[in-house]
């Protein structure tokens, strides 16, 4: 192994962590409310509004059905509009967020659906408003599940960020392709893959621990 690998790896790792962390935060902020809406506007729920539910459901499904690599290039104009450039780590976050928000929202919807309706009914019988039911019943009750599912989202973001890197976003994917593949240095590919494995393990472990700690059932 040559001595230049380490600084290359550290820099790439930093970029990946930055891309994943920031897009994760933004996606969560957007994805959780969308997931709440997906659930609460569905049939028989506290904010039942079926046309609205169908509309957002269709949009979410449409985005989710586009393969990430195609989504990435398809929205280059949007990316340019938002970030000012289509190349670079920050620019890579736009498709990452766009792909993760629908993913998170479906995950959140599934978690909320698992809460027995009786608990919602009990809250209604105590005079809770729909907003109170969301904040004090749905979200706390579903939190262990949501945390476990956000862990899965982080892991798929790590994978997608590597793809985004390949079109100029930097990060571990970029390093593996440009140095490892194009310059015939397999040791760089191996080193990158090892770093990714450790990263995914760490995220999964932390997620599991947190979910377990929150779960009082």
């Amino acid at each position, binding site marked *: 192994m040559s001595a230049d690998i380490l600084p290359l790896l550290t820099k790439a790792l930093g970029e990946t962590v930055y891309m994943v962390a920031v897009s994760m935060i933004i996606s969560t902020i957007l994805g959780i409310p969308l997931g709440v809406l997906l659930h609460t506007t569905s049939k028989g729920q506290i904010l039942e509004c079926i046309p609205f539910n169908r509309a957002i459901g269709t949009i979410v499904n449409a985005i989710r059905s586009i393969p990430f690599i195609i989504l990435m290039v398809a929205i280059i104009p949007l990316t340019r509009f938002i970030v000012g450039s289509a190349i670079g780590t920050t620019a890579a976050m736009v498709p990452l967020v766009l792909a993760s928000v629908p993913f998170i929202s479906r995950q959140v919807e599934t978690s909320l659906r698992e809460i*027995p309706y*009786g608990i919602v009914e009990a809250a209604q019988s*105590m*005079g*809770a408003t729909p907003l109170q039911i969301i904040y004090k019943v749905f979200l706390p009750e579903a939190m262990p599940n949501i945390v476990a599912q956000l862990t899965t989202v982080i892991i798929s973001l790590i994978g997608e960020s590597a793809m985004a890197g390949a079109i100029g976003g930097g990060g571990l994917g970029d390093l593996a392709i440009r140095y490892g593949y194009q310059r015939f240095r397999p040791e760089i590919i191996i080193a990158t893959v090892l770093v990714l494995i450790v990263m995914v393990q760490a995220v999964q472990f932390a997620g599991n621990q947190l979910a377990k700690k929150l779960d009082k059932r």
Partner: protein
Amino acid sequence: MIDLSHIEKIYDSPAGPVHALKDISLHINKGEIFGIIGLSGAGKSTLVRCINLLERPTKGKVTIDGKDMTAMSEAELRTARKGIGMIFQHFNLLSSATVFDNIAFPLQLSNTPKKDIEKKVKELLELVGLSDKADQYPSQLSGGQKQRVGIARALASEPGILLCDEATSALDPQTTKSILQLIKDINHKLKLTVVVITHEMQVIKEICDKVAVIDKGVIAEEGQVLDVFINPQQPITKEFISVLLSNDLPVDFRKAAISRQPIQDGTLLMRLTFIGETANDPIISNLVKKYNVSADLFFGSLDDIKGAPFGRLIIGMDGSEADIEAATNYLNEQKVKVEVIGYVRRHSAIAH
């Protein structure tokens, strides 16, 4: 207090509209424990949800304390619901919150100051006997303890009404007894009006003052619990009661031929029902002493219905027709309900 008038509930289902409640009118007085009993699917859960409008009746009016609930806006309704506590078969506690926070929940909804919440929750924990469990989570509690938390939570906003939807149906008989006792106590202590939904006559017998029997969406029968027990009118009511008090003849007589007319070597079977004070009087010994009849005891049971003794006997009476008639009159005078079953051969019991 609670007035339901001409309540109808129709659901849309893929198989067409389902008429869950048909023209139900009920009046429940303040401080009463009112039981509604029915088989599953009879509409009783829908009916209780119509009281706090968790289910909105398709037609009809719900009036509580003179206020028309069905005419209220969502916001008014939320305020009104704070005056109606509710407990559930599956408790419906927040699994992510401690016992303390579960009980505090309704108070947090109305932004009660922290200090007041703490004081109120402490009181309630004491009332339901769970002071040592404040920091535990529902998953660490037994079924009976969970229902106690449910009761404390329902009482937190100091309601005037408590609705119990199959509150003891998921509990074992021992725990059921203690929860019913608790409900009876709080009804007494807090002058609470209680509506109890159940499919078990036992529950009605233990705590209710009045009962309505609901069958296929209509009230089949309604009245004071004791009256309904003594004189059930509808087959469905008789069925519910028979679970508790067997109306069957003793095994040995079930296959015996029963005759309307006196038969040779026969005895007249009668079913006697004693209520209240008469259950404690020496009526049978008086009967034998005063009239020239003999009475063989074949079956007897003593029960109590919300504190009133309730005794039932099956006897075989022997004597001349005139003596038997005189004896029967005496029984009637003593407020004993007499049902003449018929004559059977005296040795049916032994000979099978």
